[in-house]
């Protein structure tokens, strides 16, 4: 399925509010786009995205076809400890992909 570009600042100070960027490769086919035969390309979207920090919820999203192709999310997290950010996204067929990134807190 998709692959993603995850952007987490390499080193941050404890208590900092840190900006995270995630760009996921996915067509987000809306189901409303006509194909050359007068039908519609079948819907194929990511329906959810989530980010956790050592298992704790940080940010998540329920997605609809109005989210652009190659979904992009930027959001913040409070850097409390050196740990792992886990990003996951799930498509219409309930397939989930996971990517992780380390966050180092001084």
């Amino acid at each position, binding site marked *: 399925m998709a692959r993603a570009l995850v952007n987490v600042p390499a080193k941050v100070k404890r208590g900092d509010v840190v900006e995270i960027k995630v760009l996921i490769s996915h067509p987000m086919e809306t189901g409303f786009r006509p194909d050359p035969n007068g039908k519609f390309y079948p819907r194929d979207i990511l329906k959810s995205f989530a980010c956790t920090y050592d298992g704790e919820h940080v940010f998540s999203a329920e997605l609809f076809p109005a989210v652009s*192709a*190659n979904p992009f999310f*930027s959001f913040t997290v409070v850097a409390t400890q050196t740990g792992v950010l886990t990003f996951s996204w799930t498509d219409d067929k309930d397939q989930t992909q996971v990517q992780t990134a380390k966050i180092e807190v001084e």
Partner: protein
Amino acid sequence: MNPAARIGGLALIAMLGAFAARAQIADADRKSGAAFMSAQTQEMQRDDGANPGMLAALDGESLWNARTGGAGKSCADCHGEAQTGMKGVAARYPAFNEASAAPIDLQGRINLCRQDQQKATPLAPESRDLLALSAFIGLQSRGMPTAPPDDPRLTPFRERGRALWSQRMGQLNFSCAQCHDDNWGKHLGSAPIPQAHANAYPIYRLEWQGMGLLQRRLRNCMSGVRAQAFPYGAQEFVELELFLAERARGMPVETPGVRP
């Protein structure tokens, strides 16, 4: 929706009818297509963490290292690290190909290696893998000046491209030059007309919601004036690409670009 439905052929003619002839752009006045974009789209191109073209480049990196074809070889097996082996390569394409005694663009060159070196099937025009490899190889020239080869064998081909550039075409009877040399900076509908420099390809185009190579972009311009576009891979396209590379000589490569 077709472009005629969007702006209307007659409206287009009326708009361009009022245009002045300005002729060839002086070097000092040259501007990348990015200069005509909104601040947000410029930022999307500039920020590697937000530029969707970087996803294609990432895919390209995997393909670069993947063994495939009858020879079971990866690009990396012969060329090593792309960061060194492919540095500056995209900036000097199209180039002359001895075997066919004709110019080939970067995609043609990639497919030669696919067929002759990897013993694999050539990648289809605008296919995901060709876009990915092109973006990845192009990225290795990012920031370097566009540097078409000074190869006299290319001259007749480039001159044919130049002639095509000035030739009126399509039901609307416009040449590339009329829009891009004479009237850049003006608007067609709400879209600004850029100078048509090809220094950011392949691009991620918002309109396409995906990546595309220069030929796809050129086909869009041809259907914009309701001309029958050349098929992908046509010699005419490679000749136009040669001319565009010369026209952009010295301009920094921006691959992967983002365009509206």
